[in-house]
């Protein structure tokens, strides 16, 4: 390349750069104005989480790790943490096994794909409170589950299904299973069907083909869906609030009590920071797996 052309290109770039310089910050301004309080709020959460708290004086400025220590050692909080992880684990595993065949079907649906996607996404975008109410009706003493139990003679009176951990788990599976299916279907759609045909032509049974070709190739989708569902389940608030009804203490409901009932803001802040840490680590892993998947295919 001759130097004259190089200079020409350089000048053009510089000109473009100068043009965008004033334009871009001006366009970002309204959004930044809206989001600045959120950043400020998080900075405050982090700072408050190191403060002291006195039942009489309220919050006392300090630099202490006590609140974080309590998140992991206070019996009630530790139990909430364990319950959160247990519920999220159960929800994630069930979502993976129930959702995988659905993702396979969507990836092979052809012209029905749009319809299936719409059906998958509709409950996801309806008010979570309304979905929780649906589960209240289903699991309630006059709901279909109890009338089946009683009609079949398995139970003499209505079983108590509402306000249990089971109710929360059932709602969360329903709420989050689309987030397992979507990344799985996206990965499955990118698998070259010729690979399956090749395995079958070489004499592999369908089961063998699935376990040795399809399953390993869909691993990025499995990991991404698992991380996403785990993150969403552990930060869910409405399901434990409405369907747990005070009997199921998870991190989010404990945070609500600490912030609004005991008003122990430093403790609530530490709980929030721990939850954000957990969720951001999971989501970062999710983003990393997805971007790596995109690059390799």
């Amino acid at each position: 390349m001759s130097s004259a052309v190089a200079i020409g290109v350089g000048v053009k770039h510089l000109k473009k750069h100068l043009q965008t310089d004033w334009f871009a910050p001006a366009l970002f301004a309204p959004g930044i104005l809206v989001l600045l309080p959120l950043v400020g709020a998080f900075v405050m959460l982090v700072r408050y989480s190191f403060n002291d708290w006195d039942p009489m004086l309220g919050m006392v400025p300090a630099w202490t790790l006590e609140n974080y220590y309590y998140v992991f050692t206070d019996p009630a909080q530790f139990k909430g943490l364990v319950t959160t992880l247990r519920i999220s684990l159960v929800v994630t595993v069930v979502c993976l096994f129930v959702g995988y065949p659905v993702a396979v079907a969507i990836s092979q649906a052809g012209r029905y794909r749009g319809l299936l996607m719409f059906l998958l996404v509709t409950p996801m975008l309806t008010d979570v409170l309304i979905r929780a109410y649906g589960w209240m009706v289903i699991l309630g003493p006059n709901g279909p589950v109890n009338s089946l139990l009683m009609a079949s003679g398995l139970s003499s009176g209505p079983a108590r299904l509402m306000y249990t951990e089971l109710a929360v788990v059932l709602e969360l599976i329903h709420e989050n299973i689309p987030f397992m299916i979507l990344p799985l279907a996206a990965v499955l759609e990118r698998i070259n069907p010729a690979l399956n045909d090749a395995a079958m032509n070489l004499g592999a049974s369908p089961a063998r083909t699935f376990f040795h070709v399809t399953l390993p190739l869909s691993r990025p989708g499995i990991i991404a869906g698992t991380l996403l569902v785990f993150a969403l389940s552990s930060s869910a608030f409405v399901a434990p609030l409405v369907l747990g009804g005070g009997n199921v203490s998870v991190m989010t409901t404990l945070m609500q009590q600490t912030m609004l009932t005991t008003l122990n803001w430093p403790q609530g802040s530490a709980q929030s920071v721990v939850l954000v840490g957990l969720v951001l680590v999971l989501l970062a892993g999710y983003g990393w797996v997805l971007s790596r998947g995109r690059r390799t295919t």
Partner: protein
Amino acid sequence: MKLHVTRRGLLLTYVTLFFIYLEGPLAVIVLSSFNSGQIVRFPPEGFSLKWYGALMDLVRNAPDMKPELLNAVYTSLWLGVASTIGAVIAGTLGAYALQRAKIPGTNILRQLFLLPLLFPQIVTGIGLVLWFSAVGGVPTWMRLLLGHLIISLPCVVVTVTASLETLDRSLEDAAMNLGANRVKTFLFITLPSIQGGVLAGAIFAWLTSFSNFTVTYFLFSGEMNPFPLWLYQYIEYYIDPGAAALATCVLLITLSVLLMINRLQALGRVVAVSK
């Protein structure tokens, strides 16, 4: 060959059952709203529209405990519209700048614009409680509006970004070469080309605001009680099918809104990008 057909049939049966399960809770609400009895029961005892009538009464003469329904709906409506307008302006400009700006720090800004999606909503709610108490003197309507603006902004950013990615940039270059300045090019070339994404984002943002529970829960006050909070208080204390009738109305609104978005931009795509 025969085996292959049975396998397909099995998968089809499984998927059908799955979608019955997935739409089940919504169907149960709709069906139990037509119950003629006094309490929510499924299967229903008989068919009746009386709970829709009761709902109308509730709206018309607002007796005893529940006079807040209309107020709650009004609050949620204006809150939704106001935060949508704000989110559309800030989100469209932001998404455009994110795609075009070559300034350092664009990547950090991209993370910032999607931050409300990454944060657990309960943390956004709690954080804003602390922020507002530190700032002091912010009226409830402003707290709610800012909270809703924050959570609906990424909806617009996501849909507009998706539209911008399919936009043919040579159109903009042509306009600029013909002497239009950047503002004119944006208004007359870019904006009309991405209007589908902007509209989808606006509807998506409105839906997010209208149905948000978690952030609202931490910011509302007695005098200003948005609809999801009202519904929560209602279903905590009443087991009559009135709530089911109300939920059915909201479901109908949601479904029509989703059909609208689906026409503008494939729903699956919007959600896949947003999460």
